[in-house]
């Protein structure tokens, strides 16, 4: 376990050290104090615990690493993540998990607007609620929301699956409720387990996805 204190090392030194780490390395980052771009571009099976709140783009482009934030996170958390795991103990700001291809994002608090925008295969589990335009153009992956969703959930969604426990203020274009079948209950149970959520039953969720009405050009969709 190695300590990196951002009061003593620069952000660039911190990221270089983390990016050059070996598999199995363990790091604790102190005094993050809302700084941007912490722990970006990691590509080893390593664990990083950040003891504090972080700013923009934390854990961006992550591959394989297991990153925990013991506080709140700013905009663009785990943007374009490929694999690995990012766990935020507080809340996150806008476009968490944008365009992420793989791995798992777990948010214990709320996520704000555009969570999972254009997600391409990542799994996102939010213990709280999400803001407007979440899962906009979501292409692939699973998105679990234990609270409520803001306006236009899943607008122009492709093949991502949304599991929502509360209510959406509105559904976006082409996003509809779909039947929960056994395979969905099974994968939802696995996702909840992955996020250590044991007090919520899969039966409390509804599934949402694409009506696939926007896949082909239709003159009725033109303004």
């Amino acid at each position, binding site marked *: 376990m190695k300590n990196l204190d951002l009061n003593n090392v620069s952000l660039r030194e911190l990221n270089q050290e983390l990016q050059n780490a070996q598999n199995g390395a363990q790091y604790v980052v102190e005094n993050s*104090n*809302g*700084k*941007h771009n912490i722990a970006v571009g990691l590509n080893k099976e390593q664990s990083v615990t950040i003891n504090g*709140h972080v*700013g*923009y783009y934390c854990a961006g482009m992550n591959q394989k690493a297991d990153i925990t934030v013991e506080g*709140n996170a*700013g*905009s663009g958390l785990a943007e374009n993540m490929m694999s690995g795991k990012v766990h935020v103990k507080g*809340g996150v*700001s*806008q476009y968490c998990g944008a365009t992420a291809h793989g791995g798992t994002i777990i948010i214990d608090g*709320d996520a*704000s*607007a555009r969570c999972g925008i254009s997600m391409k295969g990542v799994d996102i589990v939010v213990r709280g609620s999400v*803001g*407007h335009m979440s899962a906009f153009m979501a292409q692939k992956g699973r998105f679990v929301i234990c609270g409520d969703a*803001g306006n236009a959930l899943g607008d122009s969604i492709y093949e991502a699956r949304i599991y929502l426990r509360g209510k959406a203020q509105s559904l976006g274009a082409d996003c509809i409720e779909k039947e929960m079948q056994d395979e969905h209950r099974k994968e939802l149970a696995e996702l909840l387990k992955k996020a250590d959520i044991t007090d919520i039953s899969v039966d409390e969720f509804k599934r949402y996805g694409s009506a696939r009405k926007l896949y082909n050009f239709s003159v009725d969709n033109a303004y």
Partner: protein
Amino acid sequence: MCGIVGLFLKEKKLEGHLGSYLSDMLIEMTERGPDSVGFAIYDQPTIGKQIKCTLLNTLVDSGEELNWDEVRQALKKQFGNDTKFEEKGSHALISVETDTNTLNEWLNENFPHINVNGSGRVIEIYKEKGLPKDVIASFNLQSFTGSHALGHTRMATESAVTTGHSHPFSTGDDICLVHNGSLSNHNRWREKLRKEGIVISTDNDSEVAAAYFNWRLKQGDDLNTALTKALDDLDGFYTFAIGTKDGFAVMRDNIGCKPAVIAETDQWVAMASEFRAIAMLPGVENASIWEPEPGKIYSWHKAA
């Protein structure tokens, strides 16, 4: 990119710390706005018929001598010996028995280089180009007291880096605006508002927003109505924070691109562009924290 912060104290016993809380918040927003910094403080109201005005000597932008003595003497001669005048670098805080319009007209005629930053019964507005920590130290912001305050750190995108272009902008007696974002239809609105007789002194887009609210309020709209109309009239990206004599309001545009986060405890309400500017406030660990929804007005007022 700019940084905006706002703090509203619910507990009177915290009022002595307002300036020190606000300086910490603003310094944390330096990376979002290293060009200039400004703040509006709401403290004790003036007594009697006097109004309080923060004057800005725009000669500071051209490096000329400020010559406050001449202004001080002329003010006393014009508005009486009770006029209080406190010099603070490029700024002067005055208490004077008149109204804002009369003072503005008199200044335009006699000292056109003096702008009224803010005026009313309670508001004081200070702003200066330079790094937030340096400007804050020069105004000794830590020592300010009051019930609520707004602040702004500027990274200029639309117009020049000068003290005159810095925020907050006054939008009428005891009302001011800070803005993070950019407006795309400000030129047309500037023309229209000038025709309506609203004074706009720079080519800054945010000043037009301030002038817009000034105009709406003069027409008799309340703040909520003016904000609602702004959603249709002002085109662009914005998070606005507006200070009033007894509270403040926050509104994001209908898309909600520009950041804002609000935190509330039993002791205070704070808003900022990023959580890091709130993280140092006492009791933040028990605050409820959320990001304002687009196109929705959030406001807080002192209990009457």
